[in-house]
């Protein structure tokens, strides 16, 4: 084993794509560019999931994040039009204090990540995970699963109630 293998190289490419898109989301001054950078981040994270042998979660990520949440966000950007004026204006918390806070938090977390000897096992060969996840949902995690369906129903009704137009009869 010498040098960097093809799998490692692919991992680095996907990770760099993810991070560059996330930088675009965080630093772009136009909300539309941020929304489209978010697409790159979500797809990159889905790629990372595939590297982590989580095929089902990767597909769910593409379906729900890219197909659902991102489309919803772009709709919201378009509905609250005046796209050009809604700029990043940083009056109360400027960029510099925010960078400082983020640097402190990230520094502590980096120390924790790199300084801890994580318990680690040799990863097994990737195998289809759908069967085990389905068993988990309807076995050990049946109560959270049912609660999540109630939460989704409440969110559905809540979103409809919040976003409908009031009919004012005057």
């Amino acid at each position, binding site marked *: 084993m010498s040098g960097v293998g093809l*799998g*490692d190289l692919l991992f680095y490419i996907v*990770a760099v794509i*993810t*991070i560059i898109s*996330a930088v675009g*989301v965080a630093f772009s001054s136009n*909300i539309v560019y*941020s*929304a489209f950078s*978010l697409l790159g981040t979500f797809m990159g*994270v889905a790629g990372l*999931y595939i590297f*982590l*042998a*989580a095929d*089902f*979660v990767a597909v*769910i*990520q593409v379906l*729900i*994040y890219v197909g*659902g*949440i991102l489309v*919803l*966000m772009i*709709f*919201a*950007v378009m509905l*609250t039009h*005046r796209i050009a004026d*809604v*700029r*990043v204006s940083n009056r*109360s*918390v*400027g960029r510099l204090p*925010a960078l400082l806070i*983020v640097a402190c*938090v*990230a520094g502590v*977390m*980096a120390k924790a*990540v*790199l300084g801890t000897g*994580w*318990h*680690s096992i040799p*990863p097994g060969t990737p195998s289809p995970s759908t069967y085990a*996840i389905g068993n*988990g*949902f309807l076995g050990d*995690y049946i109560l959270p699963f049912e609660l999540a369906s109630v*939460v*989704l129903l409440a969110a559905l009704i*809540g*979103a409809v109630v*919040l*976003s409908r*137009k009031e009919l004012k009869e005057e």
Partner: protein
Amino acid sequence: MSIGLAHYLVVSLVLFALGFYCVLTRRNAIGILMGVELILNSANVNYLAFSRFSSGQYDGQVFAIFVIMLAAAEAAIGLAIVIGIYQTFHTIDVEATETLRG
């Protein structure tokens, strides 16, 4: 050195830091929601990385799916609130919505 747990944790850390920065600096409500999505994604990467490299079980994947589910609910409600704010205040700048300030 082959790809291990630390690589994924570092990627997730960078995603978290960018999302946190986004939440702190954006004054656009949709931008803040995008930052929250970045943070949730970084948490998911952590779940799956620990699931693969530390436990070998599928519990991490199950929890990642729960996180995605709740992120979908959060995005739907959050964006509905943003639309409501826009209809009331005609802006989605979170600095402008200070009616409750005494």
